[in-house]
């Protein structure tokens, strides 16, 4: 009866829950809202918290990949099919995809927001290259899912328990030497993304990075996610690396719930 309000959680019922790695589970729900790869939602865990989560599925069934590290994410990871959560969004700028060959570099759970992009890109020629990096074999996420897309998938682990031993950026370096890419997309630790951005400079391919900052409102007013006057919740989370490079905090500082700056 009443009009749907954009910035009000809509309650959805979890239809599927899967443990993807010892630390990461995916939650899925039916949701017809339009979303683009790289966008995020504000997820309300009733009675606990509301936290930003990238969408790892953007079709008629939406999904998030939750890395349990604190109160809210652990509460999320404990939920099961049939439980209810609130969703606001999708919010923010996702990845723009232009024609041409794309290099995708994911570190850790960063693959969550990149997976829908790869699925989209792999449907056309030329096939994209995807680096999926993690510290160790058990933390690798969505490798099979990436392989199924037909993309060229390179797996790296810091400890060599799976794929190439080394950093995702090492693999990215080799791919950048081997192929010509018309764009690079990356999500992961900011230190990693900083390297990806500088590696890609030699090819002068535009680089898009997905950032994470402490978010409260998600709609660009509370200023808690601000970086150099930009709101990651609205002007990000995906941003052009040239824009990001100009932000002194990138790779160096983040802010906590009080708005205090802390070294990363």
């Amino acid at each position, binding site marked *: 009866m009443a009009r749907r309000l954009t910035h009000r959680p809509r309650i959805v019922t979890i239809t599927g829950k899967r443990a993807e790695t010892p630390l990461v589970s995916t939650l899925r729900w039916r949701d017809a809202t339009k979303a683009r790869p790289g966008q995020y939602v504000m997820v309300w865990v*009733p009675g606990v*918290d509301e936290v930003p989560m990238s969408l790892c599925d953007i079709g008629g069934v939406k999904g998030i990949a939750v890395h349990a590290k604190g109160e809210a994410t652990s509460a999320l990871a404990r939920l099961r099919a049939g439980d209810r959560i609130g969703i606001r969004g999708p919010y923010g700028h996702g990845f723009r995809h232009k024609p041409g060959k794309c290099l995708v570099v994911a570190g850790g759970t960063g693959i969550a927001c990149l997976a829908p992009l790869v699925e989209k890109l792999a449907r056309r020629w030329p096939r994209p290259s995807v680096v999926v990096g993690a510290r160790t074999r058990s933390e690798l996420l969505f490798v099979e899912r990436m392989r199924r897309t037909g993309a060229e998938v390179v797996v790296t682990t810091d400890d060599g328990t799976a794929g190439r031993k080394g950093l995702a950026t090492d693999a990215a370096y080799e791919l950048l030497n081997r192929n010509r890419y018309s764009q690079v997309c990356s999500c992961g630790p900011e230190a990693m993304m900083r390297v990806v951005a500088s590696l890609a400079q030699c090819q002068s391919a535009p680089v898009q990075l997905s950032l994470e900052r402490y978010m409260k409102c998600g709609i660009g007013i509370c200023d808690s996610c601000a970086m150099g*006057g930009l709101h990651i919740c609205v002007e990000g989370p995906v941003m052009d690396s040239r824009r990001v490079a100009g932000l002194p905090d990138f790779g160096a500082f983040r802010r906590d719930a009080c708005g205090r700056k802390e070294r990363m």
Partner: protein
Amino acid sequence: MADLTVDVAGLRLENPFILASGVWGETGATLARALRAGAAAVVTKSVGLRPRPGYPNPTIVEVPSGLINSMGLPNPGIEEYGAEMEEALRPGRPVIGSIFGATAGEFAALARRMERWGVSALELNLSCPHAKGLGAQLGQDPGTTKRITAAVKAAVDIPVFVKLTPTVASIAAIGRAAAAGGADALVAINTLKAMAIDLDLCIPVLGHGTGGYSGPGIKPVGVACVYELFKAVRVPLIGAGGVSTGEDAAEYLMAGATALEVGTLVLRKRDRTFRQLSRELARFLASRGHRSARSLTGRAHRGD
């Protein structure tokens, strides 16, 4: 073109539009962005003595005629805020330091620090509707309002603004108390205590339960408060609450305001907020043959 400049307690403003506290104000760089986008001045997030994380999320929920927020006064603490102020001051326009505390002594200490950080004026938050022992709980009592205002006035040399809550029996009584304490200007209004309940989960949406209602739905209340204050006190008034168009601004000016604070509109208009308001107000003034924004102040009282 109509003259938009105004003067509030000695602050010369290029136009009457000021960024309200708590919107875009936790970091100095965003305050600078608002100034570059045409705000004549900005108010910082309300800052306290110690770092404060605020209330648990959700801290914001939309309602059909505005927003309800329960940020809960998150801030990095006055010491850390110095670094933000450096950035905020860069565009060279007035920055107003909003402070909150639990006692007159805390307010005075914060005021001194803010003055040192270089603000052009102070705004005392005696009006946040959802923080226990702070904000409105102080500003609902005339005696406390006067005492805190006087303590801050004694501590600093810059102008002191007092921001009032509409959730009182008589805003005029509180306004008079603030004026008696030496306030150089009054800001009205802060948000109204409000809440939204989720109909599926049967629980309040906001983590804190209640929050503060802002946006177009509170404008009729804000205009009445400014109108009543104009009759009650002889200090300049800054109107706030639901200003969304140049016409809204004109209405507040006629009620008695000299300048306006704008918060919730920034959600929809982002960087366009302030230039658009200035353009609309200028167009309004021109279309009605008014020469200046200044000339509208208190107009609605002429027949009194």
